[in-house]
């Protein structure tokens, strides 16, 4: 009775662990990033519990420092960076361009194993007692002073970087070489454009952070003077190298989420995107300018003021393509046929939270203001609005949108709306108070803090508990739907795009015959070819 799909084409653990099917690899990633997300979330929970009171009464200072460090390392390197590209991108890019698989299926599987290997190193560092340098590994603290497992954790980051590089390489080659006949660049779904831009950052930026982390290990183990001034090194050099990757890494997290939002907004407004080429090129602009803004992390680190001036200017410039996207998404809803299914709720949540995250970035790009808010909770709030409010809302929105396609099952629309609402409310209650605490001067990474900041921290911790419930709800109903959800049709949303023309879940080879593409995606109204605007 059951038709053959990629899910039941081969049974047993071996058929999953040795699979070359991009869709199965996407599910392997889904399971592993979910596990890391839970782990990172657990660390965050301890941080928020400790900060309920000004005194350091729950955890020892050293333990607290390890908690926020491991929260950052796990969330950034093992959840946010792989989440959308390796799960949704892996699953959808070949289907969206009418291909049977990625260009290098074996390398795709290899990248998952590398990711797991890196994860095991980091996990080993946690089990051995953790690392306390902050996820930024600043020298000379990390090389000369820290007594924790810096090298093991650093190797985890180093190794998992290769998984990112291989995924980016695979995407770029696939998008260039494997598009179906008729699928020109300007007919590509914007999700694919966003991943193309992301992949560029992955292959150009990741090697730099890999080398940087390796240099930390070299200095720590062999005492070669690279960053430690006592050995003749320069500690600020580390910050340049680290942020040269780690600022663009923020765009690795947010660009794919922007791609997801571009898809969702079209489907649930039943309308093609407003300003296709502006959205597509703004992704590339973000990827390129994003490489030239790293120095805004160093305004008060003794960097030349003229260098600071240029970095400040470029940081304001990189805000413009993001603004263009927000305006275009908003315009897309105008005169649409809008339905508020849960992916669209996540999409609206993304637009709101990303807007706040982006606009507060301007405060940090303004040099004179950054002096005061640098390294305070203002920064913490800002980047969580981007990385959680933006990237995770995008990820969850995308997961809900393509879940019926990926699993062939529907989930509870009621519970999914409750979950989306709780996450939005919990998120704002967690992080908005941190802007206020930050402007009041509360420094980040503080185990104890003066009592005048308590009220904002209590709000934040209360919000975090709502947020935690909000994250558990989807875990429950999505898991339930996996086994007992109603069967999904090929196109449950009435969406337009190659992925909605094939069965849910798709067969192993995706398409019976290579599709021939005659127009762009999301053509709801009968109309001419999408113009260049």
């Amino acid at each position, binding site marked *: 009775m059951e038709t053959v799909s990629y899910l039941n084409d081969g049974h047993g653990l071996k058929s999953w662990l040795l699979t070359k099917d991009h869709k199965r690899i996407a599910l392997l990633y889904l399971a592993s990033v979910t596990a890391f997300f839970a782990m990172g979330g657990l660390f965050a929970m301890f941080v928020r519990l400790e900060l309920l009171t000004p005194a350091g009464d729950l955890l020892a200072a050293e333990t607290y420092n390890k908690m926020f460090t491991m929260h950052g390392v796990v969330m950034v390197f093992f959840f946010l960076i792989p989440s959308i590209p390796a799960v949704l991108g892996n699953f959808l890019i070949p289907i969206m361009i009418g291909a049977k698989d990625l260009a290098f299926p074996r390398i795709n599987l290899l990248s998952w194993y590398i990711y797991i290997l890196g994860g095991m190193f980091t996990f080993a560092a946690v089990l051995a007692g953790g690392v306390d340098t902050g996820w930024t590994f600043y020298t000379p603290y990390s090389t000369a002073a820290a007594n924790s497992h810096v090298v093991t954790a650093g190797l985890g980051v180093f190794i998992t970087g290769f998984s990112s590089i291989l995924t980016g390489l695979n995407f770029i080659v696939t998008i260039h070489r494997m598009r179906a006949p008729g699928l020109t660049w300007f007919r590509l779904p914007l999700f694919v454009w966003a991943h193309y831009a992301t992949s560029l950052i992955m292959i150009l930026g990741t090697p730099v952070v890999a080398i940087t982390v390796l240099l930390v290990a070299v200095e720590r183990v062999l005492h070669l003077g690279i960053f430690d001034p006592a050995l003749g090194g320069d500690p600020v050099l580390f910050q340049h190298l680290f942020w040269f990757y780690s600022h663009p890494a923020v765009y690795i997290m947010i660009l794919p989420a922007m791609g997801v939002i571009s898809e969702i907004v079209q489907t649930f407004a039943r309308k093609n995107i407003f300003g296709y080429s502006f959205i597509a090129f703004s992704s590339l602009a973000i990827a390129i300018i994003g490489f030239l803004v790293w120095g805004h992390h160093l305004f008060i680190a003794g960097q030349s003021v003229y260098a600071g001036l240029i970095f400040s200017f470029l940081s304001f410039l990189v805000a413009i393509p993001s603004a263009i996207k927000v305006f275009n998404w908003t315009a897309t809803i105008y005169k649409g046929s809008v339905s508020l299914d849960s992916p669209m709720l996540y999409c609206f949540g993304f*637009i709101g939270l990303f807007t706040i995250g982006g606009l507060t970035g301007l405060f940090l790009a303004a040099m004179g203001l950054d002096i005061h808010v640098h390294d305070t909770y203002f920064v913490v709030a800002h980047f969580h609005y981007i990385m959680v409010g933006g990237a995770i809302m995008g990820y969850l929105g995308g997961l809900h949108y393509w879940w019926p396609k990926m699993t062939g099952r529907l989930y509870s629309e009621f519970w999914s709306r409750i979950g989306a609402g709780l996450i939005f409310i919990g998120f704002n209650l967690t992080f908005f108070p941190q802007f206020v605490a930050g402007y009041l*001067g509360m420094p980040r990474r503080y185990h104890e803090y003066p009592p005048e900041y308590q009220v904002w921290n209590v709000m934040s911790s209360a919000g975090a508990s709502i947020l935690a419930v909000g994250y558990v709800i989807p875990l429950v109903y999505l898991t339930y739907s996996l086994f007992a959800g109603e069967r999904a049709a090929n196109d449950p949303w009435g969406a337009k795009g190659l992925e909605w023309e094939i069965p849910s879940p798709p067969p192993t080879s995706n398409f019976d015959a290579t599709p021939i593409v005659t127009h762009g995606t999301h053509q709801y109204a009968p109309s001419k070819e999408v113009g260049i605007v």
Partner: protein
Amino acid sequence: MFTNLPFFPEQASAQAPQVDALYFFLLAVTAFFAVLIAVLVVVFAARFRRRHDDEIGAAIHGSLALELLWTFIPLGIAMVMFAWGAKVFFDLYRPPVGAMEVFVVGKQWMWKVQHADGRRELNELHVPIGRPVKLVMGSEDVIHSYYIPAFRVKADVIPGRYNTLWFTATKPGRYRLFCAEYCGTKHSGMIGWVTAMEPGDYQAWLGGGSAATTSPVAAGEKLFNEVLACVTCHQETTQGRGPVLLGMFGKSVQLQGGGTATVDEAYVRESIVNPQAKVHAGFAPIMPTFQGLVTEEQLLQLIAYVRSLGQKPAPGTLP
């Protein structure tokens, strides 16, 4: 429990209103755009909600005029923010000539302070109001960051170099001092107080220290002449093996192998701990390193002394 809900930090320096003006400008502009987007999204979603199942949206592909509008208006506003931010930064960055100088050394997990007259403090800083104060800061171990929220000033304190921070306190009172750069286990314990006082009270406070304090210049002189015997080579005449330091501080010197260097705090420090890095032209690279032999505080004292020599005329010039 929470009798007052703090929203805004105290303004206690001449710099604070400048920073806050920029903050309120950004707050107003960004709030406007955030509300604009939120209202548009909500209104559009309600106004254009799907009324029957097979309804589709209008075929609108874009508008070049709108794209240009929402590219260039935000760009213009961003450039105003950029210019204003840069202006505030430059004002906060350049200490005025004649600022009162205080030496600060950060180490895990304390702030050591020495005033020009020799008075020392730990995790405290006393300053007079109405007078620019310049902190010259170094670190003994890892990177720290000196942060006084009520003054809206902050600067990283980095081992191996000197960063400066300056402010003019305007309101007497006690203000929080934080380390803002994560520096290890007791990072959140590396805090203290800055006390701004009426000038008269400050003078009284300075006089109230223990009698046996030595000024950094005097301590540096002792190191220079006796403890480290720098004077063996750096004599007051041109006969020595090293350059004469009279009148040199603040000047530019020719380096061996070409190039010049300004004799400032960083150059003097480097010449003591790593003498071969930038050798004064005309002298043999024979000076041994003093790395590990002098502490950060002694380095600051030596620099203070060398600077005091700089105010004396160089030999062979008219006074």
